[in-house]
């Protein structure tokens, strides 16, 4: 995924058409007709259900007793917000997000540096880096769960400081390590590709100039390379952070939420699909949606990501 790349750059001769001419009116109407199907479909499956969730969240509504639907105002939200389970899953999710994105950023950057400099076997590297990206998350979850398994895996055998019968999935912290390993493995390549695109923007001349002026490798990295690829880093962080906050597949496959490893997405899913509590499930959906908005807002404000300009530069 990447930021939008639309630009206002237009051929000059079209710009010259005076506003409100027949031609610009025709162009306006054609443009709207062309985007309409895509726009309607996007809104039909997102905005409309979200409004419906907002409405349902005000009811005590369970699919097991649909006729007992009852308006309860904000009480579902109060129930959720006053429940320690909600806060624990949120804390879990935030922790996964911060830890995985931080590690991915470092490893992804290292990979991008290598790929940027490599001159041989580019195709092989590119192919292998795309395999984790393309692989089904569920498959990645299985691969790592079985790798950490104490009966059929290999991790215990490879780690000298662990007994062969250490059970990774018996307690909270080791389960979280396994989950994050799968998440980091699968998504680091995507991060490194975005960072690679950013690296390509750093001017070689500037690097040469810094070198001539006697800057060390470390100084060049911090004073030239990183500041010049700020936009790429921020876009990668924004997208990966929001993606990590939605973590669901790995947890579902690897622990099914055991030992307190539930994420907020998993809790929402469980309330709706397994327990048929549509009222409280909808309230959790709305809260999840709001928290993603808050995170997006915080990242954009905190790091001053300028999505509009990133887009215009396309």
């Amino acid at each position: 995924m990447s930021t939008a790349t639309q630009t206002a750059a237009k051929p000059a001769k079209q710009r010259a058409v005076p506003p409100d001419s027949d031609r610009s009116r025709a162009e306006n109407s054609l443009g709207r007709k062309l985007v309409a199907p895509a726009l309607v479909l996007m809104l039909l499956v997102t905005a409309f259900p979200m409004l419906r969730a907002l409405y349902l969240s005000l009811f005590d509504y369970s699919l097991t007793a649909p006729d007992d639907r009852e308006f309860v105002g904000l009480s579902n939200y109060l129930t959720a917000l006053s429940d320690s389970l909600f806060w624990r899953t949120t804390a879990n999710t935030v922790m996964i997000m911060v830890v995985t994105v931080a590690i991915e950023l470092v490893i992804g950057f290292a990979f991008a540096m290598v790929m940027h400099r490599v001159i041989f076997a580019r195709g092989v590297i590119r192919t292998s880096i795309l395999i984790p990206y393309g692989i089904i998350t569920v498959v990645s979850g299985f691969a790592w769960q079985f790798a950490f398994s104490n009966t059929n895996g290999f991790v215990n055998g490879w780690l000298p400081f662990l007994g062969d019968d250490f059970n990774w999935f018996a307690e909270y912290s080791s389960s979280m390590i396994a989950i994050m390993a799968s998440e980091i493995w699968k998504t680091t390549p995507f991060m490194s590709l975005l960072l690679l695109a950013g690296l390509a923007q750093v001017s070689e001349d500037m690097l040469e100039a810094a070198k001539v002026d006697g800057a060390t490798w470390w100084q060049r990295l911090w004073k030239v390379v990183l500041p010049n690829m700020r936009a790429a880093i921020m876009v990668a962080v924004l997208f990966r952070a929001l993606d990590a906050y939605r973590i669901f597949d790995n947890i579902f496959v690897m622990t099914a939420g055991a030992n307190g490893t539930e994420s907020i997405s998993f809790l929402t899913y469980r309330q709706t699909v397994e327990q048929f509590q549509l009222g409280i499930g909808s309230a959790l959906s709305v809260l999840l949606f709001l928290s993603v908005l808050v995170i997006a807002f915080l990242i954009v404000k905190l790091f001053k990501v300028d999505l509009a300009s990133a887009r215009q530069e396309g």
Partner: protein
Amino acid sequence: MNNLKNRVGIVLGCLLILVWCLLPVVWIISLSFKSQAAITNGSPGFIPADGAGAGWQNYQDVLADDQFRRAIFNSIGISLIATVLSVILATLAAYAIARLEFKGKKFVLTTALAIAMFPVVSLVSPLFDMWRTFGIYDTWIGLILPYMSFTLPLAIWTLSAFFREIPWEMEQAAQVDGATSWQAFRKVIVPLAAPGVFTAAILTFFFAWNDFVFGISLTSTENARPIPAALSFFVGADPFNRPASLLAAGAVVATIPIIIIVLFFQRKIVAGLTSGAVKG
């Protein structure tokens, strides 16, 4: 001296990348050759131990399983239909965004950006309810619709980035040289636009093939259940006692299409993923 050190560093880095990317893949392939009896008794280690190998038995078993075959069929059908429809709609929209001035362009772009960041799980509960009301719960169309709307943003961005690079004047130039407008479109514009459309299609297909959240929550039977969901339900309740090697074989089968696509189209995929990341 310094140069040599750099080169060694890069070679080591490349090896590290290869190990990182391929180790879990090799592992799951290796696991798929452990026999089911060995798994039940416990058979640790990266490579199947002596006497713990199963040959192709796990693959035969998994391919003989009706539910698994049905899931593959569902996944292929749903992903392909969603991809084709999504790319058609995205092509229309991206053409308008790249080539035309119209009111509401900004709204379309903002909507697409917002949807790309949308927490999909928050749609599970309302869609679950709505799809039941509409009677499309547990059907192909019930999955195709959400797949389309979640791949449209990516497809629209990728395509409009590609379309902006096309020298559209060439169409007129061809017409001046005597080509009909259809010829100009077919011989000049289509070959230029095709790589972009193709890239968008691959990325869309990946998303649909990968999806798990909609796959488990909007289906209940093998009628529409796609591969990721089928794999996760392969054994049912106890998540700690799965027939690991059988599942691994299923996982490998489900990964084959991805590997084939990556092998043939790696260059296009990278271009698509990073087009417009920054300054594309």
